[in-house]
């Protein structure tokens, strides 16, 4: 006898359940134990099982077990997969191209051109010799230990993903700041993206795309890293001094003029803080994405774990830290320059 027989008996569903509960096979551990110890053991009320799907299945074989739920989800996903692919595939194809091109360019440009170029970028953004020096030391070190190519691959992926995040995230953030309803819808989605373990994104993506396509890891990185730039764009625009907005209104600005001439420039420090966070998070995700064929330093980390090559793991981990420091310092310096020109 199962604990919850009375529910189905009480509801008059015994016929729907089919035959009596007892011939459903020995599906539960308790029954199995009861069998081995010989004869029915009186179950004390203390051990009443939670009315879970499995427990109810014991009482009524027609009631689905929980593993049927998970396999049902899987079947459902597989069923819509093909039609989903028809829509998503062309939409995301440019991401594959961008990633492929970026990877090719970063590797094709010789190091003696690339490192000065990166120095130039660091200078243009931060105007600090100190940071340019940091760039030289870090890339010099990574090149010296023969990780130059891996570093460039990682940098290419981050570049493409961060740019995509900004291109998508800033407009979404603006939409959220202008409509409370959009904000109410978006906040739970952003919360979910932020808290869902990154590995979980990978599973449906693997079903959807082939592992050889770069967009597979591209999408995973973007989904994970887009959250801060969206949030901080929304926050930044909402925090713009209402007095200044009123002045803009009082001088007859249109909504569009207000957005581009007042709100976005004044929200820029917050938006840039979001971009900084987005870059940091895509760097974190790049390692996980190497599980699904993303090239770069993550592959080395993975190799370190898989074959217990401690040295490789540590050195590539250090490489990622160095990259993170450079990206963080350079974007923060850019942020500081914006802040100085606006501080009130």
């Amino acid at each position, binding site marked *: 006898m199962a604990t919850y027989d009375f529910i189905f008996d009480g509801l008059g569903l015994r016929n729907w359940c089919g035959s009596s509960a007892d011939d459903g096979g020995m599906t539960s551990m308790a029954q199995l134990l009861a069998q081995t110890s010989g004869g029915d053991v009186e179950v004390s009320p203390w051990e009443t099982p939670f009315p879970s799907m499995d427990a109810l299945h014991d009482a009524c074989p027609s009631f689905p077990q929980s593993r049927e739920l998970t396999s049902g989800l899987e079947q459902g996903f597989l069923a819509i997969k093909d039609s989903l692919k028809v829509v998503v595939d062309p939409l995301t194809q440019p991401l594959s191209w961008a990633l492929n091109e970026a990877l090719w360019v970063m590797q094709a440009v010789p190091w003696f051109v690339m490192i000065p170029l990166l120095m130039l970028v660091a200078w243009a953004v931060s105007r600090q010799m100190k940071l340019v020096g940091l760039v030289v030391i870090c890339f010099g070190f990574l090149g010296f230990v023969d990780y130059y190519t891996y570093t460039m691959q990682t940098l290419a992926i981050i570049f493409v993903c961060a740019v995509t995040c900004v291109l998508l995230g800033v407009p979404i953030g603006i939409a959220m700041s202008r409509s409370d309803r959009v904000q109410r819808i978006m906040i739970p989605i952003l919360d979910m993206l932020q808290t869902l373990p990154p590995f979980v994104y990978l599973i449906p993506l693997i079903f959807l795309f082939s592992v050889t396509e770069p967009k597979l890891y591209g999408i995973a990185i973007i989904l994970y890293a887009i959250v801060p730039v969206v949030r901080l764009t929304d926050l930044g625009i909402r925090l713009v*001094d209402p*007095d*200044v907005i*009123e*002045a*803009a*209104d*009082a*001088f*007859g*600005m*249109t909504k569009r*003029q207000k957005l581009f*001439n*007042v709100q976005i*420039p*004044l929200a*820029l420090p917050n938006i840039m803080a979001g971009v900084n966070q987005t870059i940091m998070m895509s760097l974190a995700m790049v390692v996980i994405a190497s599980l699904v064929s993303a090239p770069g330093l993550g592959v080395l980390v993975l190799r370190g774990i898989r074959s217990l090559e401690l040295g490789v793991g540590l050195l590539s981990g250090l490489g990622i830290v160095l990259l993170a420091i450079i990206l963080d310092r350079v974007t923060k310096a850019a942020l500081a320059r914006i802040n100085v*020109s*606006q*501080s*009130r």
Partner: protein
Amino acid sequence: MTDTEIKISIRSLYKVFGDDPLPALQYVKGGLSKADLLETHNHVLGLNDINVDVPAGKTTVIMGLSGSGKSTLIRHLNRLIEPTAGEVLVNGDNILDYSEAQLRELRKHTMSMVFQKFALLPHRTVLQNAGLAPSVGGQKERQYADEARKWLDRVGLQGQGEQYPHQMSGGMQQRVGIARALTSNSDIMLMDEAFSALDPLIRTDMQGLLIELQAELQKTVVFITHDLDEALKLADHLVILKDGSVVQQGEPQYILLNPATPYIKDFVSDINRARVLRVRSVMTKAPDATGERAGEIDHDDTLESVIALSEGDTSLSYRVMKDGKLVGVLDMRKLVRALVPVEQSDDPENARLSG
């Protein structure tokens, strides 16, 4: 006051803040007070039956304590706040019928505004801030630079166009705010507690600047303040608000001498009357002034200056001149009597009508 042209005319304007203002408005029209409306219907009465005529080319000061609805009122003049009922006529047009586009034109070309907290755009230079109105109209910086620079020079900010607002003191920032309003070349300037955030000395400076600009440009200025001294210094026409209603309006001198309600009497009781009152308000009108006179004074002199002239001798009397013509006589005894706050006017109704 009746012979001047009316620039802005506010007709039975009501504003009720809350979720469902229209039914609440009916209660207000039925005579429910601000406090009762809040208690029984949870709506806030912002403005209650406001009727004000703003004369062209003059400074109209709207004065009231915080919560009196003065900032709400000024925001109705360019529809930053929508009224619940009533009319606002600007140059004879009811701006409440305006479309969005017409309203933007009005804000760009007819009315400009100066704010308490300056509200400059921190990411633009002073010159770009001063040129906000033309830049909103689509002009490039080089097109409006001359005009903006002219007004920056006029408010005393020569050669500071390339600075950013955060590099300037509060007083200088508000000069930029005024230059910004002037660069729009609008007839009407709305000034929302424009000098309240400045420290006293700077404030006096700025008041002087405004009076100077007014003498030169004769804009229609609507000035909001909670400071009676400031109001009396600047106003050609004074409107006193309390709890969203107009308590008294008229020429400041008249209000000072004939306060309509105990509220206003309290208000005006502790100001320096000698500095505010003018000879014309206390003199005796007389076409010919025979007899012993100590000298001639102008009808627009303050009583303070006359006291200084007489060296405190109350036995003297003066001929009062206007444009070189004799208009009356002023007895020093009468002057001293005028310095003592009067009992409440016998005829408050008359006081309000004359405004």
